[in-house]
C-alpha cells in the first residue's frame, strides 16, 4: 500500500496498462509533452515514448472518432477529455457511433476504447466547467460509466476499464484529484459493476458515488450522533449497476436516499429511484429521496453555487427525513 492522490493513482493505472499491453496508447490535449492539465499523464511520454502518448489538437469530436477507429483496428486507445463538459462537442461520436458500433455490427466489432475525463463543481468554474454529465452517457445504451471516489478505486477501476472490450467512460472528480488515500502497490484491478458498502447502517441507505461519497460519510457520521444509522453505498459503476448490492441494502434498511451532484431531471437519482420502487415497492417504508443539483446551470458566485450544488447538510437532512418522515 502507498499513499497516493487520485491523480497519482490514475497515472499509476495508465502506467500499469501501458506497460502491460502494447496495444494501449494514451492521447488527448496537452497529455504528452506537458503531462496533462491535471498531471494525470505526467511522465508517460518520457517513459513510454511518442508512439504511446500523443498530443492532440482541440478536436474532441475528431479525436474520439479516431479512438473508435483505432479501437476497431486492434488498438486499445485511452483518450483524455480534459473536462466532461467538452463531451458535448463530441456527443455524436460518443452516442451515435462509439456506443452503437458493437451492437450495429451484430457483435462482430469490439470497441475497447477508454475515455478518461473529470467533472464536478464546488470551485467557481461556472456553468461550462462544473458539470457532471454521466446521465447523458447512460441514457443511450452502449457505454460503461465509472466514477471512482478514492485513489484505490481510481487505479483499479481504470485498469479494468482499459482491459474491458467495451467503450468505458471513466470520470474523476476535480475535487478529489488531490485527495490522498491508500492504494495497493503492484497490479490492482477492480472489476466493473461492483458497488462498495462504505459504511454499514440499519435505518436508511444512502446510495451515491464520486465526490459525494465523502459528503455522504460525513452526513452518516453526523446522523449517527442523532441516533440515525445510515448505510453508505458507493455505486462506483453506473453501467453496469450492481443491483445485488443495491437490493440487499434496500431490503435491509427499507429507506433510501440517492445523492449525486448532477441535475435531478432524467438523472441517475431518478433512474435508480424508479428501479428500486418498481422492483422493491413493498420493501419501501418511505418515499425515496434524491439529492441533486437544483434546476439551474451551475452559477459562478459562491453564494449561488453553494445553493445549487448538494451539501453535506442537504444529504443529512434527506437521511433524517427518510427516517423521520
Amino acid at each position, binding site marked *: 500500500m502507498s499513499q497516493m492522490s487520485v491523480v497519482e493513482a490514475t497515472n499509476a493505472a495508465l502506467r500499469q496498462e501501458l506497460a502491460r499491453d502494447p496495444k494501449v496508447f494514451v492521447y488527448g490535449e496537452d497529455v504528452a509533452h506537458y503531462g496533462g492539465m491535471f498531471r494525470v499523464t505526467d511522465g508517460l511520454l518520457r517513459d513510454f515514448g511518442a508512439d504511446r502518448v500523443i498530443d492532440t489538437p482541440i478536436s474532441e469530436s475528431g479525436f474520439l472518432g479516431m479512438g473508435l*477507429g483505432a479501437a476497431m*483496428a486492434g*488498438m486499445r486507445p485511452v483518450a483524455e477529455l480534459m473536462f466532461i463538459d467538452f463531451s458535448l462537442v463530441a456527443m455524436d461520436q460518443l452516442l*451515435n457511433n462509439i456506443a452503437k458500433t458493437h451492437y450495429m455490427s451484430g457483435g462482430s466489432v469490439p470497441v475497447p476504447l477508454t475515455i478518461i475525463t473529470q467533472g464536478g463543481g464546488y470551485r467557481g468554474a461556472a456553468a461550462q466547467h462544473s458539470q457532471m454529465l454521466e446521465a447523458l452517457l447512460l441514457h443511450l*445504451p452502449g457505454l460503461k460509466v465509472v466514477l471512482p471516489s478514492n485513489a484505490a478505486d481510481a487505479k483499479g477501476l481504470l485498469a479494468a476499464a482499459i482491459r474491458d472490450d467495451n467503450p468505458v467512460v471513466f470520470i474523476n472528480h476535480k475535487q478529489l484529484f488531490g485527495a490522498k488515500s491508500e492504494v495497493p502497490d503492484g497490479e490492482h484491478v477492480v472489476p466493473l459493476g461492483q458497488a462498495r458498502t462504505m459504511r454499514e447502517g440499519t435505518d436508511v441507505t444512502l446510495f451515491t458515488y464520486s465526490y459525494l461519497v465523502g459528503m455522504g460519510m460525513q452526513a452518516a457520521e453526523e446522523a449517527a450522533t442523532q441516533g440515525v444509522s445510515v448505510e453508505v453505498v458507493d455505486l462506483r459503476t453506473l453501467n453496469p449497476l450492481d443491483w445485488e448490492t443495491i437490493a440487499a441494502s434496500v431490503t435491509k434498511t427499507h429507506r433510501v436516499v440517492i445523492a449525486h451532484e448532477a441535475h435531478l431531471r432524467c438523472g441517475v437519482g431518478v433512474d435508480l429511484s424508479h428501479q428500486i420502487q418498481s422492483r422493491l415497492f413493498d420493501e419501501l417504508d418511505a418515499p425515496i429521496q434524491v439529492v441533486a443539483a437544483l434546476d439551474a446551470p451551475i452559477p459562478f458566485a459562491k453564494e449561488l453555487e453553494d445553493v445549487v450544488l448538494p451539501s453535506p447538510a442537504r444529504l443529512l437532512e434527506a437521511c433524517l427525513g427518510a427516517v423521520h418522515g
Partner: protein
Amino acid sequence: METSQRDEQFYRSMVRMRAVETELLALSSAGQLRGSLHLAQGQEALPAGAGAALRKDDYVTATYRGHGYVLAKGGPLLPIIAEILGKAAGLGGGKGGKMHLFDLEYGILGTNGIVGAAVGTAAGAAWAAQLQKTDRVALTVCGDGALNQGHVSECMNMAVLYQLPLIILCENNLYSEMTPLSRSHGDVNLAGRAAGFGLNTAQVDGNDPEAVYQVMSEAVNRARTGGGPTFIEAATYRTIGHYQADSGIGYRTAEEVEAWRAKSPLDRWAAKLGKRAPAIAAEEQAAVRAVFEEALALPGPDPLAAGTQVFA
C-alpha cells in the same frame, strides 16, 4: 493487372453494383424493404475504381450511400445483402441494416448514417495502422455536403498533423440531398478547402473508373510509403433521387440529369468492352439475382437477439 483486364473488372464491379441497387429498389417499391434506401446510380465508377486500388486488409468507411464500396472491397455478397434485407445471417445479424455495414475481415469499419461521422473512424484506423507500423491504409468516402460537418474539418487537420495513411474520397455529386453546392458552400472549390488544411489533393473525373483507380493508386501508394493523407475530389452525379422516395427532379432540371446520364460510367464501359459487355453484364446480374433469391429465403433474426450484443 493489364488495362484490358481492369476494364473488365471495372465493368463487372459497376454492373454488379447496379444490379444490387436494381433489386433493392424493386424490393423497396414493393414494400418489401424497410427504411430509406440511398442509391448511387451514376456514381458506380467510384467504388469500382477505388476498390481496385485497395488491398483486402486496407480499411474502408463510407456513407449511407456506401454499399458500393462494401461490395467493391471483395467480401462475399450474401452476408452483405442479407444485412441489407435484415436477416439473421447478415453481417450485423440484421441489427445494423443498410446504413451500418461492418465486416472486420475485409476492413469494412462501417457505412454510417451520420453525415461526416465515418471520417473519424477511418482516420483512427489509419492511425492504428501507423502506430502498429503496418503499411495498411484507410479510405473514407464522403459527400460534398459532408465537408460542412465540423467533424470532417477536425479530421482533415489531424490527418495532416499525424501524416496519416488516409485517403478522403469526396464524391462531389453537386448536391447535399436537394440543396446544390451553390447554396451550401461559400466556396465550391472542395479540393481548395482541403489544401487549406495542408492535405495533398487531387481532382478526378468520378465517372471514369480507370481515372479513379489511377488517382487512388497514387494516393494509396503515398499513404503506404509514409507520404501522408490525400484528399480526392471526384466529380460525379447521382442520376437517381437522393433516396427511394425522391424523384431526383424538381430541384434539378431534367436537362442536367440527362446530361449526366449521358456520362454514365456503365454505358461508357459497356461501349469500351464492346461485344463482350452483354455477356459479362448478364453473368453479373444473374449472380446477383441468385444471391438475392438465397438471401430473401433466409430467416429473420430471432426476436430474443434484440437485447444481446449491446456489450462485448
